[in-house]
């Protein structure tokens, strides 16, 4: 469905095309956003939506058409010359917050917020007192629980996301409508964090600014957006008022075909217990005990900071300060002594949530990333057999529906969803007895999510015990046979059978939390601290 845009848009983009080499990523795309409108931009990984917003923020140049109409951009009725550069985009009041939340951890919250915009007093000295006062007010207004002088690395993910948005807001003009572009601002946030980000988005829209929201989550689209555009294969395949659009219609516009069931049929299986945690404790987790059977899919969830995001790293020996016992296949291990190497030897595999920092190396090829845990297989009589390695990786990429299935591409040149499928292949091929998956579908488009869910179900059917650490309640309710809910580092509930539903998980996670939604927590995303500080 393509419905005409608003009569008097703040921003009107016309006829934008972009090619990389011979590949056409955008093909004559139009986009209109009105004053005070939240416009959702959807599409699969690699559909061209990121390219579109990069053109809007002046990072990419649109193609010049050899014939016919040139691309054009009208902002508040004025014609802006394309290509933009980042400085001119910023001066025109177009500001964007990128997915990776560019926050400098070692700098203070105030510095992160104001860098490049510090107000100066006499002799170019920064007016610290004034800056601090204004920052404190802004933090309070957006419910960010932190002090201006505190280092940003102590902030919880949700607060970091809010801080990045707050910084984006400061680039909006005060006296006329500006454009705020948010690229998956909620990708790493649990439900309560999402609500806070939405409240902030509404405030921005109420002030008359346009918000362009790039997201993969359809529930978010319906919750926050006024209008929706879908890009498929570089073209707008759908644009309409969100309220008049059905979810099925959106999914069809994104994929180009009917999705069918997102979740695979789940078979209940029981078998021997292969993994047992006893009195497991870490920074946040305390005294957690649970067990997982062969062929079972078990979920571990909670709000951010509830502790579930720490558990996979404790089980895998990737975090210092662990205590308790991990019992794998009847053999008891001291959690404090476990190392990732040892965990792998015991038959465990871990897919970390942090794709760029903990899961894969973007500057290495897909082949090198995928074969890393099983390199010894290709080391035959003193030589690493590359052609064997390449064909094996290629086979895996095909089996895991990675597009393109090209082992020699750099990992970073794949879209997020395809990177994730390749990294799943990296771990699935080790044929682990126990598969620990931390947020396996974050930043992954809906088609890839469906593939990943099927792969998980297949692995379980083949006898792998899967533990899913996630804050995607709908996924958990549909994939798992049991879900453990954590609060404040402790297990508070175990849901299974008819008692297992998205609503129940949400209710149990949130219980007693309404008083202080998204309270500040000391730990980050769950990656072990091996990085050195200079």
């Amino acid at each position: 469905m393509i419905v005409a845009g608003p009569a008097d848009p703040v921003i009107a983009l016309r006829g934008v095309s972009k090619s990389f080499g011979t590949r056409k990523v955008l093909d004559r795309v139009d986009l209109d956003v009105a004053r005070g409108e939240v416009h959702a931009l959807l599409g699969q990984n690699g559909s061209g939506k990121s390219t579109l917003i990069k053109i809007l923020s002046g990072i990419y140049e649109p193609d010049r058409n050899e014939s016919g109409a040139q691309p054009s951009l009208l902002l508040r009725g004025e014609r802006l010359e394309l290509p933009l550069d980042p400085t001119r985009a910023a001066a025109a009041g177009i500001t964007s917050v990128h997915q990776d939340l560019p926050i400098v951890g070692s700098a203070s919250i105030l510095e992160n917020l104001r860098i490049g915009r510090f107000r100066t007093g006499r002799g170019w000295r920064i007016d610290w007192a004034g800056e601090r006062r204004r920052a404190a007010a802004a933090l309070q207004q957006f419910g960010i629980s932190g002090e201006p002088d505190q280092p940003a690395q102590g902030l919880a993910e949700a607060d970091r996301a809010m801080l990045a948005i707050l910084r984006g807001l400061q680039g909006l003009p005060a006296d006329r409508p500006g454009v705020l572009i948010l690229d998956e601002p909620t990708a790493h946030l649990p439900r309560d964090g999402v609500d806070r980000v939405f409240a902030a988005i509404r405030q921005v829209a109420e002030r008359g600014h346009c918000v362009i929201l790039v997201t993969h989550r359809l529930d978010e689209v319906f919750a926050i957006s006024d209008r929706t555009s879908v890009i498929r294969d570089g073209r707008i395949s759908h644009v309409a008022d969100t309220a008049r659009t059905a979810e099925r219609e959106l999914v069809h516009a994104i994929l180009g075909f009917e999705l069918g069931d997102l979740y695979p049929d789940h078979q209940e299986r029981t078998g021997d217990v292969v993994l047992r945690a006893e009195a497991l404790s870490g920074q946040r987790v305390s005294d957690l005990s649970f067990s997982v059977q062969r062929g079972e899919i078990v979920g571990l969830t909670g709000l951010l900071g509830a502790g579930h995001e720490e558990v996979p790293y404790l089980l895998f020996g990737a975090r210092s300060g662990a205590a308790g016992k991990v019992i794998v296949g009847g053999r008891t291990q001291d959690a404090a002594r476990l190392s990732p190497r040892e965990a792998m030897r015991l038959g465990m595999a871990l897919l970390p949530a942090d794709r760029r920092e903990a899961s894969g190396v973007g500057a290495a090829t897909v082949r090198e990333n995928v074969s890393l845990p099983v390199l010894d297989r290709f080391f035959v009589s003193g030589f690493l057999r590359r052609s064997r390695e390449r064909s094996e990786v290629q086979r895996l990429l095909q089996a895991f529906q990675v597009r393109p299935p090209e082992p020699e591409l750099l990992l970073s040149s794949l879209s997020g969803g395809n990177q994730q499928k390749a990294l799943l292949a990296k771990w699935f091929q080790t044929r682990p007895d126990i598969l620990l998956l931390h947020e396996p579908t974050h930043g992954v488009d809906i088609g890839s999510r469906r593939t990943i869910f099927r792969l998980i179900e297949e692995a379980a059917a083949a006898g792998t015990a899967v533990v899913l650490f996630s804050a995607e309640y709908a996924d958990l309710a549909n994939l798992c046979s049991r879900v453990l809910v954590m609060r404040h580092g402790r297990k508070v509930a175990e849901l299974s059978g008819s008692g297992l539903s998205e609503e129940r998980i949400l209710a149990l996670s949130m219980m007693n939390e309404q008083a202080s939604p998204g309270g500040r927590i000391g730990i980050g995303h769950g990656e072990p601290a091996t990085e050195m500080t200079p």
Partner: protein
Amino acid sequence: MSGQNDGISESGQAEPSASVARRPGRLDVGEIASRYGLPIAWLLLILGFSIASPDIFLSRANFANIFGSQAILVVMTMGMIVPLTVGEFDLSMAGLVSTCLMLIGVLNVNYAWPIGAVLAAVFLLALVVGALNAFIVVRIGVNSLVVTLGMGTLLMGAAYGISGVGIIGISESLTAIARTRLFGIQMAFYFGLLLTLIWWYVQRFTPLGRNMHFTGASPQVARLSGIDVDRLRAGSLIASSLTGAFAAMLLAGVLGSADPNAANGYLLPPFAAAFLGATAITPGRFNPWGAFIAVYFLVTGIVGLQILGLSGWIEQVFYGGALVLAVTLSRIAADRLKS
């Protein structure tokens, strides 16, 4: 380690996307330019000097000199890229070479130790220094740049402490090993070549090499993939120290004497060669053939300019200038390719 990572990722941009990634069976001009730019530049340099000075530069003796005289630099560069690959610096090598050299001179000449015992002592010292570097860097967690710079300075001073003046008359069995000529080139060259081959084998054909690369690219990813990151980091620092002792042994053999100033000029050049080499062959990665060619590119340039009448100052100017220029060009090429 951000310094090193920045350095390498700069040139790592040389393969920014699908366009430059290796794809079998297709000829890519940009890829060839980025991979073989340095060897081509080296050949052009040789060609230029040959035309400018056909009698002296283009002589057999001169080439034997170019390849033989700077073999120490090849050995040290190979030692240097081992820790660089896993993301660590070893700036203590030049100091270690000085101390080892003086130790060889004093023990062999002044104390008349047999050369075998002397070498055993020297390699033991290198092992201790490497293990100490590794302990402080890996176990305690201090930045390797700082630790090894300090250690190198300490050792440089210790070399003067052992003997402030040069010592001549080092065992002939050692000088014979380094100076014997094969096809007109000193044996030292072949030791450098051998080390390059060994390191090439490790890097390209063993899981160890791949694991080291991932450790350098992302210690986090490597550790979570079951790689014993700390062991590789420690091992690489010990390997570079042992290579330093080997370089000192060759230097003592080539010179036939020990002088506390002899290794002073070797602090920066192996570093320059390592980074310069990382722009070629496998752009974006420290690699032995790139480094090997980089050493001889630098040496050829300096020898050629000296033949053309430029005196001692040219050495450092050329080392520094070539490094800055090469890294800059590879960056510009990468940006061009991207757009």
